[in-house]
């Protein structure tokens, strides 16, 4: 039982990282109506920035985290301006998706050239002497609790931002009807850039947390968590931030429990089966809205 609770907390910790990534997906999908395939690789870039700042330059972890957030924010805005904006009115979701795949591939190979394929050992942002918390037979990693706490705080902040501030309301308006929003004097381009900036900054945080919990960093670090976080976003209902949170947590728990009790090799297959089952049974996800297709 004790070990089960420890696994559950591990699952929730992994799930909260997925949740932070999934929120980035869900926000971009809600507003720009596109699947930002490169989001997972932004996480990887964020982790490399933090690695360079903390390990190579020897700065304190907080500086690394901030650098990672700022770097990712900038990267997110650049990706949007250079690769996605020219295709916004192309009228083909296939074209945008392939471009996004191209961007994802580009970031991976750029990292491969700069940092080589040798995995780097990421120093956790948690100090050495406080790595684990022990209470009798019960032992968990501090980072697990940090991940869960950070994700809860981020979701609350984001909900406040979206519901209580003018830029947040503008985002909501853009996600509902872009044309009407621009008629009301909302800058659609600015709002989309803001969305990418926030989503990518969160990816930077996720990158640091992910590599603190699983400390090997390679150019491919981001792609699997990125895809799984997309599964989480779909699971929770794409476009909904609380949905992404719940989807992420559930997916993390499913993955860790499947790894422990079923088969470590099949855990990925099980996670993807969840996606397929969700899409077949309830394509809008747990908290998504049904959108009627109009001719």
């Amino acid at each position, binding site marked *: 039982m004790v070990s089960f609770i420890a696994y559950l907390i591990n699952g929730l910790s992994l799930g909260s990282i997925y949740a932070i990534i999934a929120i980035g997906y869900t926000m971009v999908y809600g507003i720009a109506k596109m699947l930002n395939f490169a989001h997972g690789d932004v996480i990887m870039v964020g982790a490399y920035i933090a690695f360079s700042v903390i390990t190579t330059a020897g700065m304190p972890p907080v500086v690394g985290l901030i650098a990672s957030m700022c770097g990712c924010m900038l990267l997110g805005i650049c990706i949007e301006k250079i690769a996605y904006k020219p295709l916004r009115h192309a009228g083909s979701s296939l074209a945008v998706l392939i471009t996004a795949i191209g961007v994802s591939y*580009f970031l991976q190979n750029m990292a491969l050239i700069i940092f080589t394929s040798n995995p780097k050992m990421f120093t956790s942002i948690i100090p050495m002497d406080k790595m684990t918390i022990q209470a009798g037979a019960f032992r968990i990693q501090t980072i697990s609790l940090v991940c869960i706490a950070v994700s809860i705080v981020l979701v609350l902040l984001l909900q406040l931002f979206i519901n209580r501030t003018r830029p947040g309301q503008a985002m909501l308006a853009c996600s509902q009807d872009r044309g009407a929003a621009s008629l009301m004097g909302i800058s659609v381009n600015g709002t989309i850039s803001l969305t990418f900036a926030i989503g990518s900054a969160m990816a930077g945080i996720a990158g640091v947390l992910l590599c603190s919990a699983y400390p090997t960093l390679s150019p491919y670090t981001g792609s699997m968590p990125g895809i799984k976080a997309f599964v989480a976003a779909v699971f929770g209902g794409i476009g909904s931030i609380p949905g992404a949170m719940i989807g992420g947590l559930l997916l993390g728990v499913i993955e860790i429990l499947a790894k422990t009790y079923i088969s470590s090799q099949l855990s990925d297959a099980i996670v993807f089966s969840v996606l397929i089952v969700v899409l077949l049974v309830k394509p809008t996800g747990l908290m998504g809205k049904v959108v009627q297709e109009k*001719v």
Partner: protein
Amino acid sequence: MNNIKKTSRNNMGTIGMIIAAFVIVQILKTAGMINSQMDGLLVPLCVYATMAVSLNLVVGILGELSLGHAGFMCVGAFASAFFSKVVEQSMGTFPRFLLAILVGGAVAGVFGFLIGIPVLRLKGDYLAIVTLAFGEIIKNLMNVLYVGRDAAGLHFSIKDAASLNLMEDGEMIINGPLGITGTPFDANFVVGFLILLISTVVVLNLTNSRTGRAIMAIRDNRIAAGSVGVPITKYKMAAFTLSAVIAGCAGALYSHNLSSLIATPARFGYNMSILFLVFVVLGGIGSTRGAIIASIILTLLPEVLRFMADYRMLIYSIILIVMMIINWNPKSRAWIQKHRPGNVIRSRREASEAGKEGR
């Protein structure tokens, strides 16, 4: 009438191009002008070109993005290699390989059909991500599949080799993460060429048939096609399954060219599916001939430009982005339409005809 002639002439051009390439390679081979390195590339070249034809059917003609195409190739490769291993002693090389290709294609086709049932209910981004998920699931399952054979017959397991309970004379056929070793080297350039040729002919004929036009109508406007009575699901399934069959045949060719077949991410993972997508995009989405040419160029180029090996994938990704933006950005599209030599005259003629009708 004029239009139909043009398309069939175009198709003859594509098929002629493949045959001409084959003849030239054969002549160079007999003249001894192909070094062993190039010779080793000939079969993979056919595999990749066939995969490009197969993926082009889904992406270009059906208009749905499949990111799990390497998964179908993986199924075909394992099914055919398994078949060849089982009947290795009891059949001659030629019938065995022919049957192995058919088995590979058929099994991949069954997978394509089964996967198509849920997948094709979805659209756009969701469909792409689910095909990706299926591709990864297939790769994962192949890594935990153990099959052995002894006097009592075949044994299956998805745990480990020991739980097969093989007798002493038993041999492993599929050994989990170690895959299949010792598949007979049946593949050669002639067979590869034939597979490529047949799949190209099949796809081109399909495109120009009633079925093909229905499939393209679904691609261009699903709702409009449905409203004039095109059975959408049926045609989507047909195209998707056919594409899986072709991918399975390519996989069979691939596996019989390798001494050990392992479902590694590098061979059958997501990156491989993306590579096929690059072929299709670079060749011009929807153009079978373009896909074949692009796959050949992109397979040969890295071998010729060895010094650029590190930057190869980076360049591919840039090609992907730039091609998509040039081809799909409304402004650049308008520019291309305007400045294409043939189009200047045509658009003028159209404009004057439109003017006449207006009067």
